[in-house]
């Protein structure tokens, strides 16, 4: 019926130039270089001995780039390092890419092993890729300029511009709960917040941990007007062709919870174990 629903991301992301080439040549295994189905407990990685990760690196405190070195840093980066350590691999971070291209890239395979990007586990995403067990809980929030008198109700109006990050659960929430407002899909949460700060947009809908952190660290002239309990949980995206890797990651996540390394990372980025 609804062939074009977001559940049915068609194979492969052609944002990766390689897809185009691979797609032309072979129809059977487009771009799935290292994605042969693995036997139980075994998995393949794109780069030998390395856990190759992708993300959108403009999502603090989960992922961001260090302002002096340009190295990725954040909660998810530490989780990825710890994961790799538990799996006996080295961690390898690829450059930042747009959030809405992460799932197609992982699905397509061949470029990265996992996307760890503050990504909520949703049915739509699970239809495209495997999601690991949840490793952190999240909620949504509405952020406006400090002193603004907007409410969730007043924002649901044709004259209001709501900035969201494309492909996120925040964007879905705005589509569903603020149907009358004009939604602006941007590449990053930072763009969205800067836009609200400068008055370009009326509000941002984004994940609560991110808005809290950003308001504390850099956007002191913004405020959260509504904390929206959604109870969503972040998971790590792995190609469906690589079930062994999903299992290994789930095992490593369980170990990290067991041996306290997850609590240590939570402590570092959120000030307390969650």
């Amino acid at each position, binding site marked *: 019926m609804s062939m074009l629903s977001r559940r049915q991301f068609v194979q492969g992301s052609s944002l990766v130039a390689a897809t185009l080439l691979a797609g032309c040549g072979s129809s059977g295994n487009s771009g799935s270089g290292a994605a042969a189905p693995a036997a139980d407990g075994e998995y393949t990685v794109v780069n030998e001995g390395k856990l190759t990760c992708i993300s959108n690196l403009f999502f603090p405190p989960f992922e961001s780039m260090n302002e002096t070195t340009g190295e990725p840093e954040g909660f998810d980066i530490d989780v990825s390092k710890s994961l790799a350590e538990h799996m006996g691999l080295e961690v390898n971070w690829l450059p930042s890419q747009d959030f809405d291209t992460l799932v197609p890239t992982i699905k397509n395979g061949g470029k990265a092993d996992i996307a760890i990007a503050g990504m909520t586990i949703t049915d739509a995403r699970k239809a495209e890729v495997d999601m690991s067990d949840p490793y952190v809980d999240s909620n949504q929030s509405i952020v406006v300029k400090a002193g603004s008198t907007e409410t969730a109700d007043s924002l649901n109006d044709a004259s209001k511009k709501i900035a969201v990050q494309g492909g996120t659960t925040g964007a879905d929430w705005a589509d569903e709960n603020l149907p009358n407002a004009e939604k602006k899909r941007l590449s990053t949460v930072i763009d969205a917040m800067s836009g609200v700060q400068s008055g*370009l947009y009326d509000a941002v809908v984004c994940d609560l941990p991110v808005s809290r952190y950003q308001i504390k660290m850099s956007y002191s002239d913004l405020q959260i007007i509504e904390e929206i309990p959604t109870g969503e949980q972040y998971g790590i995206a792995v190609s469906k062709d690589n079930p062994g890797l999903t299992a290994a990651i789930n095992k490593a996540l369980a170990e990290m919870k067991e041996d306290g390394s997850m609590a240590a990372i939570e402590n570092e980025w959120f000030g307390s174990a969650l």
Partner: protein
Amino acid sequence: MSYDKRGKAFGLHALGVAMALLLVLLAPASAFALTTNKATARPNENGGSGVIGGLATRLTWEGTVEEGEEVSSVTLALPEGGTFDGSTTKITVLEGLSRAQVEGTATPAGTQLSIEFSTPITSGYLLRLEVEGMKFPADGGDVVVGGTYVNQKGEQTLADSKPIATIANTPLQALVASLDEAPWVQAWNSNPFLGMFFKPQLLATAFATLVPGWLLCLLIVVIAYPFAIALGLIFALMKISKHRILRFIATLYINVLRGTPLFLQIYIMFFGLPMMNINIDNNVLGVIVIAINASAYLAEIFRAGIQSIPQGQYEAASSLGMSYFQTMFDIILPQTIRRVIPTVTSDFITSYKDTSLLSSVGVMELMMFAKNLTSVSGNMTPYVAAAIFYLIVTLPLIKAVSIVEERIANSERGGGPRPKGKQAKTAGVAGAKLSELAVHAEARNDADVFAPALNTIPSGLASEV
């Protein structure tokens, strides 16, 4: 403990001001142990924001368990025609912002969906149900989600949700649905390349939804360009002026604008101006940025065009006693305009394409629409549709440029088609290309030696070079 026993008035009092507001909405019904907070549906219209009946979507229902209550099961009910069959339900129970460990099983049965909890949900908890794959009645209209729940006293009626606005199927959706069914479409889409870049269903959706963005692109550049030409001409004249200060201002303006990316200029204008409390409509600001940026390039094109007119013409004009301005406006500029038309048209094409950069700051132009559609469909086809929309404008213009170039080539040689058409034409084209090249080279500022050299050659000879 039920409010029913104590009467509605007391219930209102006990619940306090906030709850009172909620209850006013639910006025005639008695107080509820499980308060319906909201019911919303995910838009499932391709390239739109409507909730279409008869097509699978996701219903999100939220309710709060009130003081002293225990809820052991909930049943949601849709009006006749809607169905929960084939749906999957995600049950989330929250206390404040933290998740609570409550298991539940959902059983869909036609218009009903019953959810049993392993342990009853107690007061203060928020129950959140996400029903993926359910369908609203196919004929559209406002849909109210009702139902029942079971608390410690037995089955109770659930308050109706606020109505969810749904629409019946649109012709576009019907076309998409028929494409979904067609065997050739399925065969076509099974090829990864064709399915990713030329998916027929998405092409249909994209052509319909991208039109407003395309019109905005055209509008922006068409309004911006006359301003760009006027500004460009002013700065061109300033740059060849005798006054050092005017020359300096023009050089600074042109070099800064040509030396920085348009993308950066857009960011500065869109994020910077509002911070100085200068609030201009996004589309108007788009016009301004494009006009200013294009004016710098046009200034260089005009300057090169003016300087490509042989020095002898100035001397001839001055020997006739013409002033500088007379010379400029009666002799030099009319010739310049003819020479720069192809280059200016090329620049127009560039500016038209550059409007795509405005999508990064939320101007709802062509790229923005394509990006939106791509981010919800995970498919590249909307970008291909956008490319076609750009080409509809640029291809005819490119053709026009080559025709104009040819015409100018003929006239530069000193006349129209000759009896020996072919030969004359070829030579003429070569000559015009050369002067055209000089304009380009001048505009790029990397062959200043070339143009003066050309200017010294009498125009008759130029075609032989």
